[in-house]
């Protein structure tokens, strides 16, 4: 199957190297992952994240449909607010994680953002359940109609504020407004996946180029490589890697995001998750730092006293810390920070220690 190309592809094709991700041909690196990472931690970077999905749900029963298919409490959202949430199976296993927006100045209109390559399955899930439950809601997969960029870093507020009509400084984390950015009507939300302050800007696919150009002067263009090191330093989950319904089935409690589960709402997976909440989890998502030279990678085994007790789901060299860091699952009894374990890096055991996440100071 041909890869999907982001609308800015031709704009930066000469400047980036590319990788396949979730069925999309995306820039993985412009100048250097390390330089891009540092730009976001110290000044400001811009990412093309048009590979993320956009599903729009509207109509009289839109709230009910969203409530029944996501784990967080959609009723708590006022217009122009968003929440992190999960989509779960009846078993409680996470299918995908997502941001759910109640669109600005709209009571019955939601937009949620599934991960790259998950848009069609999310759309089908919503349509099938709407029909099964006979709800009055319109569901559209608008992934191809929307482009999205993320402007992230300590200088993001100043940079974004300069480019748009509205004042973005009063926005709280998760807030979204509709405004003009570089003359293009856009949704702007104070959200991101880097651990830094920043904004995500959604606009019609055909209008993204002036927005990218407006920021290109002041922002370091960043690819998926630094997006991954930035999120790993924060301990943020990557869909399809840190959880996956087929290869890494995990419920939100195991994955460390039990706070996205509103058990007082009724949603697919709720009953299974209520049981888990009651009983506790046998395995827990943790951060680890290697205390010997080496780099832990996805799939490496975590070992305690000679026994394999878990595995790494994400691992890299932290550009900020200069230390090899990893995320993975271990028995809850071994999940306390300070616990010493080892990680089998290509078959060689290296000493490692459980540490709290984020690995770096949280801004």
């Amino acid at each position, binding site marked *: 199957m041909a890869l999907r190309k982001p609308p800015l592809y031709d704009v930066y094709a000469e400047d980036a190297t590319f990788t396949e991700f979730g069925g999309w041909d995306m820039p993985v*690196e412009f100048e*250097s*992952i390390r330089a891009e990472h540092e730009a976001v931690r110290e000044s400001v970077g811009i990412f093309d994240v048009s590979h993320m999905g956009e599903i729009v749900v509207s109509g009289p029963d839109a709230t009910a449909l969203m409530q029944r298919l996501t784990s967080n409490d959609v009723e708590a959202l006022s217009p122009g607010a968003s929440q992190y949430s999960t989509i779960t199976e009846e078993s409680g296993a996470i299918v995908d994680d997502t941001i759910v927006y109640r669109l600005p100045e709209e009571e019955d209109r939601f937009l949620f953002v599934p991960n790259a390559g998950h848009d069609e399955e999310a759309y089908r899930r919503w349509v099938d359940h709407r029909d099964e439950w006979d709800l009055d809601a319109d569901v559209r997969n608008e992934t191809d109609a929307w482009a999205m960029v993320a402007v992230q870093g300590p200088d993001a507020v100043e940079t974004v504020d300069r480019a748009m009509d509205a004042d973005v400084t009063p926005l709280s984390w998760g807030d979204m407004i509709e405004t003009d950015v570089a003359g293009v009507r856009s949704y702007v939300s104070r959200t991101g996946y880097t651990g830094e302050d920043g904004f995500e800007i959604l606009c019609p696919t055909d209008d993204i180029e002036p927005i990218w150009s407006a920021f290109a002067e002041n922002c370091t263009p960043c690819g998926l*490589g630094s997006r991954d090191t930035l999120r790993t330093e924060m301990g943020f989950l990557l869909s399809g890697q840190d959880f996956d319904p087929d290869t890494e089935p995990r419920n939100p409690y195991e994955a460390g995001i039990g706070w996205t589960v509103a058990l007082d709402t009724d949603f697919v997976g709720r009953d299974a998750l209520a049981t888990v909440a009651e009983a506790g989890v046998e395995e827990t998502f943790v951060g680890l730092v290697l205390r010997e*030279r*080496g*780099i832990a990678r996805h799939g490496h085994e975590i070992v305690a006293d000679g026994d394999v007790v878990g595995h790494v789901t994400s691992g890299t*060299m932290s550009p900020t810390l200069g230390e090899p860091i990893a995320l993975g699952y271990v028995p809850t009894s071994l999940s306390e920070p300070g616990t010493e374990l080892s990680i089998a890096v290509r078959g060689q055991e290296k000493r490692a220690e459980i540490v709290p996440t984020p690995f770096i100071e949280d801004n």
Partner: protein
Amino acid sequence: MFEVPTDRKYQESHEYATTDGETATVGITDFAQDELGDVVFVELPAVGDEITHGEEFGVVESIKAVSDLYAPVSGTVTAVNEDLFDRPELVNEEPYGDGWMLEVEVGDDSEFDELLSADEYREQTD
């Protein structure tokens, strides 16, 4: 355009070797370091270990990729660039200079002679 100095020979898997007839110096090419991106870890054999032409002798890792290293020649390791353990970025900065990896005592030049010339290697990377 990547640097491909003519004072050494190359292997398809992007390692180079120089030789004075007795000792070969081994590293990876400018093209290889650029493909890898920021190198963050290098694993090399110890002095006294034997390496064998065409077989793995170590690993180089960048932030985004893990890549095995293949020996361009056979012989006994006589020196290891331990600077790379603390400063793996030397592989990016000076792949043909301070980013070298091993010195190897080679038995004869026949393996070296069969490696690619700079022109042949450059053709492969174009």
